[in-house]
């Protein structure tokens, strides 16, 4: 359990004045605010020195770190501390950018949307407050990682499974869920499986959503809607409050788990993949958030591009054909799984294999046939909520540490995937960048996730990547496609795609709940 008795880190008793300031905040006010933060948290929990700030400036997005450099970082452990911090922020109009584990690589990492914001790092708030193995629920704080929760379940022999994003071992459920991230199990739509929040509002009030405000309730983690307007949604991808506790549903470990892959040879097969598998997903024959990964995504997870191609620019199609042949990868590779009793799995397996056979395309690969090889092995881990970082292999595909997720929402129709795939590949190609993509299948939608990979150590390539990303957003937008989430460099452009009325309502709520605009200004394009 976190305690204020932690060994102090080596920091000066009084932090130096920050090297950068938030917009509109004077050096004198910042100095005074820092002094009050120190009074609340102690000097070891208020840092401004370069050594402590450095990890929060490491970004993968195609912008200078200077645009996202925090003025200070503060560590809180208790809700009461956050309440006091917010009082100071309101007094001096100091903006704070809250992070939980700060592992949102490719979406902005731990760095704030604009320079000078104070990072409020809640990693020390890492208590697993409750796990109920009867109702299959958990209540966690922001700093809890998936690894920590997994260890807890294992150590206590609780047969519940998590649903994690690809960087499962170091990310955490609260941060991922409030940014509406997804995983790969039947519980892969994480916000759908969230139930109840505690939120510290800008004025210091502590709100418990859903049933949480009812004295003595036993239903906070089991009934999402509560009474009256449902509020949880406005605290996701927003800057209206600081979520300090979150309830979530966990999946019972099934008696039988059967992951499988279906390999398709041709790029154009994406149409028939969607048409064949959508009915099975909607009917819940395939219950999980399956993925359709293209050849470069598959290859990137297991090797650098240089194994087959030493050139620059777009990886030639001839090279991709060679990779497919020699590495045994498809142009598209479906990963899905079945969960349940032996009888349930057998019935659904017959339905799926029958549908694939009837479609006349696709080669099914079972776990036994894959025999522990990658990328099947890590996909199988993700679809049971296990810990892996194998997909970070994407970052070594071209090297250079540049990554931005371009993730437009797609209706689960073959014609739309063909159009989106063509358009993304065309735009990326204009800028010499690869189409490294997968579709993550939701209930009726798909997240078309493209990792815009580039060499961040090459200023020219970084500039091209930035321009490319802007064009992806605008050209997709012209055709009615918009992203479900975006990195901190493009939040305003993405927000514009959802129309002026949406932006106005976002701002109206912001002004009502945070009139001084101290909470994460710029998040999702929202400011006062």
């Amino acid at each position: 359990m976190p305690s204020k008795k932690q060994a102090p880190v080596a920091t000066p008793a009084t932090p130096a004045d920050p090297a950068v300031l938030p917009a509109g905040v004077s050096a004198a006010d910042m100095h005074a605010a820092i002094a009050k933060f120190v009074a609340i948290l102690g000097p070891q929990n208020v840092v401004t020195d370069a050594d402590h700030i450095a990890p929060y400036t490491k970004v993968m997005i195609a912008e200078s770190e200077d645009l996202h450099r925090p003025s200070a970082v503060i560590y809180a452990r208790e809700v009461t501390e956050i309440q006091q911090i917010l009082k100071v922020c309101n007094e001096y109009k100091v903006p704070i950018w809250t992070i939980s584990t700060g592992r949102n690589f490719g979406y902005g990492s731990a760095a704030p949307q604009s320079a000078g914001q104070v990072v409020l790092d809640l990693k020390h708030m890492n208590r697993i407050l409750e796990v109920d193995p009867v109702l299959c629920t958990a209540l966690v704080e922001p700093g809890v990682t998936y690894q920590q929760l997994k260890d807890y379940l294992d150590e206590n022999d609780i047969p519940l499974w998590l649903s994690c994003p690809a960087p499962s071992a170091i990310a955490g459920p609260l941060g991922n869920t409030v940014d509406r991230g997804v995983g790969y199990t039947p519980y892969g739509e994480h916000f759908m499986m969230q139930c109840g929040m505690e939120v510290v509002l800008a004025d210091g009030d502590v709100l418990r959503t859903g049933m949480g405000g009812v004295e003595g309730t036993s239903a906070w983690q089991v009934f999402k809607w509560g009474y009256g307007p449902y509020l949880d949604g406005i605290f996701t991808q927003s800057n209206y409050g600081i979520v300090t506790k979150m309830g979530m549903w966990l999946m019972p470990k099934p008696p039988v788990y059967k992951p499988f892959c279906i390999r398709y040879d041709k790029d154009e097969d994406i149409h028939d993949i969607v048409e064949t598998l959508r009915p099975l997903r909607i009917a819940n024959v395939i219950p999980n958030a399956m993925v359709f990964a293209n050849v470069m995504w598959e290859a990137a997870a297991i090797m650098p591009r240089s194994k087959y191609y030493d050139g620059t620019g777009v990886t030639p199609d001839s090279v991709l054909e060679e990779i497919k042949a020699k590495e045994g990868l498809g142009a598209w590779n479906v990963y899905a799984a079945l969960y349940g009793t032996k009888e349930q799995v057998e019935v659904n397996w017959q339905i799926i294999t029958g549908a694939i056979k009837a479609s006349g395309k696709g080669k099914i690969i079972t776990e036994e046939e894959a025999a522990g090889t990658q990328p099947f092995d890590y996909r199988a881990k993700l679809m049971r909520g296990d810990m892996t970082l194998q997909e970070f292999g994407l970052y070594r595909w071209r090297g250079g540490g540049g990554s931005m997720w371009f993730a437009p929402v797609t209706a689960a129709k073959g014609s739309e995937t063909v159009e989106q795939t063509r358009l993304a590949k065309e735009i990326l190609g204009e800028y010499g960048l690869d189409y490294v993509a997968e579709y993550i299948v939701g209930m009726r939608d798909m997240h078309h996730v493209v990792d815009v990979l580039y060499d961040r150590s090459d200023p020219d390539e970084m500039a091209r990547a930035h321009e490319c990303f802007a064009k992806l957003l605008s050209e997709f937008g012209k055709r009615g496609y918009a992203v479900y989430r975006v990195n901190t460099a493009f939040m305003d452009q993405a927000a514009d795609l959802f129309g002026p009325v949406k932006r106005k309502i976002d701002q109206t709520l912001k002004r009502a709940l945070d009139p001084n605009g101290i909470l994460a200004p710029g998040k999702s394009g929202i400011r006062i």
Partner: protein
Amino acid sequence: MNPRILPLVPVGAAFIAMLAVSAGAAPPTSSRQTPSGQWASPQVAWEKTCARCHTTGVGPELRARALPPEYITSVVRNGLLAMPAFPHTAIDDASLEGVARFVSTSKLPKPAAKR
């Protein structure tokens, strides 16, 4: 308001037939990484985080290279290209120094004997 935050007590619970749940009481919090930033041992930190990339081919092999501990700590704190940066809340200075020494003096595991 009296929040209902209870320790985990699954005693005597009834479960549906497909689940085989242990009925023992469990402590309310995990012991793996508390307080945040402190690790049970350098080896645990290595296995739970570093090794997931650096022994799987995702990141470069670090073992048996006698890398200077100061270099390791610098890369962990600042990141390097695809390598993320890890703040003090993820691993504190004492734990990081332990990991750096552990990696610096590590050897590659012996290959499994062939039958």
